[in-house]
Every structure is written in structure tokens, then in C-alpha cells.
């Protein structure tokens, strides 16, 4: 125990472990197949066991918050799509809704419906990517090809209407920049039908797989109390049995018009987080289906002044991004450029659990637990 404490102290300065101990350091990342981008985790190891994992951040840092202080809302808009590149539309959504709330701008109903439909499609896309990536981390190479097959279908739909496949910049203050047409509705309906059939394949290939269950059950258990101390949100906290979803808790846009459930897990382990996301995809399909049925006619972009005049004051807007609660907090000193924009990204808090969560774990479990968190590093680094 003494050696352990001594090691920790030494570790703070990134010095090699004390010569008397059996511990050693393993540098996982910044270029490692299962850290998804440029996360680096410094592992203090005792054989196969992880004694102390410390994430080292900042390799993808671009200082978005500073950029926001020098641009008007439209000029910063593309930045929002470049944080969580796997699910950029909720980031668009939170950002424009923030200005709408601050300046009291009305959004046409059709625009809100389009926002919800595209955001939910984007959430499904993000979960597709995650299933593949998590299974890839665990050594199964095939599921990612199946989910990417489905992902391509959605990306084609979104590309038609937003013009891009990944880093969207589609929403505008007061609405969206392009209306959806009959073709979009038709293709989306076809996709919903197809995706429902595909869940069967996912379940056969992954969910019921004995090796997968053995690798994820009881691995990386986040208790509700621990989740609260770290501010964990999104599917990770829902896996721990807490039904926290911004779409229900602080309903925004037209989400109150839809009937959907929040799937929750029981044990808070990696398997529960997997199941929560899988079930969430079905709920997103339900939302899209209802939204398409109710889709009102009308303008897709409301009347917005050319230059936004913001009142002085602060304003916060939270949305449910694919990885959890995303909050934009804006402090305005008047004018059209924010005085300060703080972006609370979900993966940041979710990843901060890692040192406590993965202490004493096997290296393979750490990879599975990290995979189940669905990390997007550029979002964390901003």
C-alpha cells in the first residue's frame, strides 16, 4: 500500500515508477486503435491490471470558446459541427436555440419539426458508429461493417438536405437553411422500415453473443451516486438506471409533442450502456415516425434581423446530444458577438469517471468500459 501511495506521488510528475515496485507505465495513445482519435491514457500497470489510469487531454484542442468571442453567431456556426463530429446536429440545435431564447426569436413549427427529425436521424447515425467502434475495441471486426451499411443510408438522406455528411451546419437562428421535400420523407420512411428489420441482425450478431455478454456484464459499473458526483449524463447515466434525458426533463423544441420512452439499465455496467443505446435507436425511430406524420406546412425559416441585437445578460440552453447533456452557456454584453460562450460537452464529464471507474481493472476491461462510454475526443478537447 505504501508503495502504491509513493507511486502516485511520483506519477504526478510523470517520473518513472519507483525501482522497488513491480508497477510500470503504459502509454495508451495518443495514437492507439481503441482510443478513438487522440486521447492518451497514461496507465500505471501491475501486470495485466490497471492500477491508475489517467487520461491526458488536449491533443485535439482548438479553443472553440475563444473563437466564439470573436465571431457573430453565423460565423461560429460551422464550429459547432466540429466538436462532436459524430452527431453534429444536436450541437447545431443547442447553439441556434440559445440565440433564439436570448433574443426571443420565434421559430416556425415546420422548422422545429425538421430540426427534431434530422437531429434524431443524427443520433441514430452516431449510435451506429458507436456500436461498430465498441465491438471493434472488443475484437469483433464484422459488426462495424453492418452498422456502417445502415449508417450510409442515413448519411445519404442527411446529405440530400444538409449538403454534408459529417460536420453539419444546417440549422439557422429562426429555422433551418433548406426545406425538406417529399423525397426526404419517403426515404426516411423507407429507412425506418429497414432499420427495424436490422435490429434483428444486431441482436443475433452481438447482443446474444456469449463472449460479448461475458466481456461486458459486470464490467465498469457506474453507480447512480458515482454518476452524480461526476455529472455523468446521457446513455451512460441511463445505463445506471437514472432516467435523465434533457428531452424529457427540460423539454425543448417540439419534443413534448411526441410519445417516446427513456430506456434505462439496471446495473450500470457496460452491457447496460450497450442495451440503452440500442433501445434508444428504436425510440428515435418512433420520434421520427411521429414527426413525419405530424409535419406541418409553412415556412422553414422565420423572420430574423440581419444582425442579431443581443440583450445584456446570460443565457443557457441544454439539449440532449447523442452522448448526453450538451449545454451552451452564453454571457452577452450586448451587440452581436458573445462576450463569453461556455460549452459543456457530455463526454468530458463522462470520461472524467475513468480514473475511479477503471482502477484495478484488467486492461481488456478498460478497453471495453471505455468503448461503452462512446467517447468523441474532439468534443472533449474542444
Amino acid at each position, binding site marked *: 500500500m505504501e508503495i502504491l501511495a509513493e507511486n502516485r506521488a511520483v506519477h504526478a510528475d510523470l517520473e518513472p515508477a519507483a525501482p522497488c515496485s513491480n508497477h*510500470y507505465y*503504459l*502509454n495508451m495513445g495518443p495514437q*492507439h*486503435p*481503441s482510443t478513438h482519435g487522440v486521447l492518451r491514457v497514461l496507465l500505471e500497470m501491475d*501486470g*495485466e491490471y490497471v492500477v491508475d489510469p489517467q487520461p491526458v487531454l488536449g491533443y485535439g484542442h482548438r479553443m472553440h470558446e475563444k473563437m466564439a468571442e470573436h465571431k457573430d453567431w453565423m460565423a461560429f456556426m460551422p464550429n459547432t459541427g466540429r466538436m462532436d463530429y459524430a452527431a453534429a446536429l444536436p450541437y447545431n440545435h443547442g447553439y441556434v436555440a440559445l440565440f433564439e431564447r436570448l433574443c426571443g426569436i420565434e421559430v416556425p413549427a415546420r422548422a422545429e419539426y425538421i430540426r427534431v427529425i434530422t437531429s434524431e436521424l443524427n443520433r441514430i447515425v452516431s449510435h451506429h458508429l458507436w456500436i461498430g467502434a465498441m*465491438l*471493434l*475495441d*472488443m*475484437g*469483433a*471486426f*464484422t459488426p462495424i*461493417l*453492418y452498422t456502417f*451499411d445502415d449508417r450510409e443510408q442515413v448519411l445519404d438522406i442527411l446529405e440530400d438536405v444538409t449538403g454534408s455528411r459529417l460536420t453539419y451546419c444546417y440549422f439557422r437562428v429562426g429555422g433551418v437553411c433548406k426545406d425538406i421535400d417529399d423525397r426526404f420523407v419517403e426515404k426516411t420512411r423507407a429507412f425506418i422500415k429497414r432499420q427495424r428489420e436490422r435490429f434483428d441482425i444486431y441482436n443475433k*450478431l452481438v447482443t446474444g*453473443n456469449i*463472449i*460479448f455478454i*461475458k*466481456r461486458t456484464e459486470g464490467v465498469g459499473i457506474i453507480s447512480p451516486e458515482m454518476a452524480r458526483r461526476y455529472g455523468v449524463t446521457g446513455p451512460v447515466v441511463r445505463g445506471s438506471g437514472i432516467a435523465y434525458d434533457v428531452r424529457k426533463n427540460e423539454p425543448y423544441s417540439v419534443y413534448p409533442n411526441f410519445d417516446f420512452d427513456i430506456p434505462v439499465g439496471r446495473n450500470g455496467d457496460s452491457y447496460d450502456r450497450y442495451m440503452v443505446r440500442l433501445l434508444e435507436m428504436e425510440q428515435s425511430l418512433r420520434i421520427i415516425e411521429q414527426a413525419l406524420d405530424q409535419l406541418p406546412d409553412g415556412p422553414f425559416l422565420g423572420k430574423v434581423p440581419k444582425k442579431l441585437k443581443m440583450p445584456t445578460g446570460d443565457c443557457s440552453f441544454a439539449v440532449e446530444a447523442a452522448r448526453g447533456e450538451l449545454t451552451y452557456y452564453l454571457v452577452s454584453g450586448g451587440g452581436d458577438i458573445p462576450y463569453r460562450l461556455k460549452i459543456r460537452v457530455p463526454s468530458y464529464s463522462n470520461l472524467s469517471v475513468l480514473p475511479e471507474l477503471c482502477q484495478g481493472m*484488467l*486492461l*481488456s*476491461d478498460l*478497453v471495453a468500459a471505455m468503448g461503452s462510454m462512446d467517447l468523441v475526443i474532439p468534443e472533449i478537447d474542444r
Partner: protein
Amino acid sequence: MPPELLRMIIAAVLVVAFVFLNAMVLGYMERKVSAHIQRRPGLMEVGPHGILQLLVDGFKLIGKQLVVPEGANRFLFRLAPILSFAPCVLPFVVMPFARKLQIVSMDISLIFILAMTSINVIAILVAGWASNNKYSLFGTFRSVAQAVSYEIPMLLSLLSVILMTSTFSLQGIIAAQKYYWFILVQPLAFIIYFISGLAETNRAPFDMPEAESELTAGFHTEYSGMGFSFFFLAEYANMFTVCSIATVLFLGGWKGIPLPLGDYTGIFWFMLKVYGLLFVMIWVRWTYPRVRFDQLMTFCWKYLIPFALANLLITAVLVKLI
């Protein structure tokens, strides 16, 4: 030149050529099968349906620079790939491809093959140690522990068959399967052998030593060019050896529907069975996630070994009674 020596030289050349060819065919098969499992066309560019891709890859690997990492033990680092490759070629010398297609007939050919395949562990140990890389060392630890453990159920399951035939000669074992294949009387031994074979050749779901999402590439992280390709060749040669032992001991070897010139054309049935098993290996790899290391060990010591022992005991009693 004495004719015996000439025969040996020709045989040696043929064996090495076969190993290379086998690696190419298997490499192509692996990539094509995995592609179709994953609903994509796979290799399509070089030659019709990409059949020449592996040839091009081979040339590419030969042309690549051999990088020796700083702080590595140069001699051992260079030695390891050869140490891995050389013993993998030797089992082909005693392999009974057909009744008369066997380069050397030994009474203890089975033991010879098992001994040769076991040397691979030493090569991995040397490679991981000499690389001066923590990931390599990690992969090596796992690999050695895994290979040593899985050798036990593998040998025990083979022993059940040996008890029935009372010979270590591969031709003798094939001859003993005159009326039925041994898989019919020893299904459990076959399953245990095949699972141990997967672990022994470091194939998924037991690919711990090179688990890329955990250890980047395990023991061959630092190898490039031909150093890497020797490991690659050895892996495929080992896979072939494991499957051909299974074919000989459980699936009747070269026996099948008689063809003209049966003494030589038995190779057709032999290859068909071996590649059938190899296909299963590839199929498993591209379907399952990787098991965890402690689960791998538990599986071996708590399930495979007791079952293999029980199977051996029952076989021994039955052989005595009948």
C-alpha cells in the same frame, strides 16, 4: 549426386514453395471470406477478383525497409522471424498428403509435428523481448502463457486417438480409419482439439498476443517488411498444420471417394478437408469478439483440461474392454 540427396533437395524446395503458396491462398481466402461475411466485395483490383493482390503484397513487403527500433537487441530482433518461420516448414516434411505423397515417413511423425509447432512460442518470446516495446512484451506474456496452457488439452485430446490406434505414424492413423472416421467416435476430442488449435495459432477469438485494440499489434508491433511477413507466413503455415493434424486424426486424412491414381490423387480429399477446417477458422474469427485473458485461462484449466482427461479415461477403459 546420389538420387536420395536430389530427392531431398527437390522436396525441400517444394515444401518452401508450398508454404509460400499456402500463405498466399490462405491470405486471399481470409480476405475474401471476411469481405463476404461483412457484405463487401473485398479484393477486386489486381487481377480478376483480386487474385493477384497477395503476390503484389508479397513484393511490397520484400521491398520494404526493415526498421530496427532504438534500444532493441539487434541480433535477437532479426533472429526471431526466422526462428518463427523455420520450424513451421518442417511439419510439411512428414505430412501425408496422399498414400504415396509423403516426403519422409516416420514412426513418430505426430510427435515430430507437435514438437516443431511448439517452437513458435520461443520465437514469439524472443520477438517480444527483443523489440524493447511494452506492448510487444505484453503480447509475449500473454502468448507464452496461452500457448503453454493450451498445449495440454491439445495433447490430451490427441492422446485419446493414439490410444485407439497404438501408433504415432500419421499413415498408420489414417489406415486405422478404414471403416469410419474417428470424429464419429471421438467428437469431444475433436472439439477440444480444434478449440485448442485456435488458441495455439493465436486466432480470434483467442488472439490475445496480437489483440490490436488493446496491444496495437502485440509481439510484432515493431516488425516491418519481411520481418513481419515471416510471422505472417508462420501463422498461416501453423494454421495449415493444425488443420491437417485434425484431418489426419479425425477426418480420415486423404481418404475419400476413390479417384484414378488413388495413391497420389488422395491429396485432393486431403486439401478439401484441410481447407474446409481453415474456412471454419476464418469464419469464427470474423464473427466473434475477443475473449478476455483470464476467461481464456479459466476456459482452458477449468473446462478443456478436465473434459479432455475424462475423455481420455473413458477411451482408455473402452479400448481395454473391447
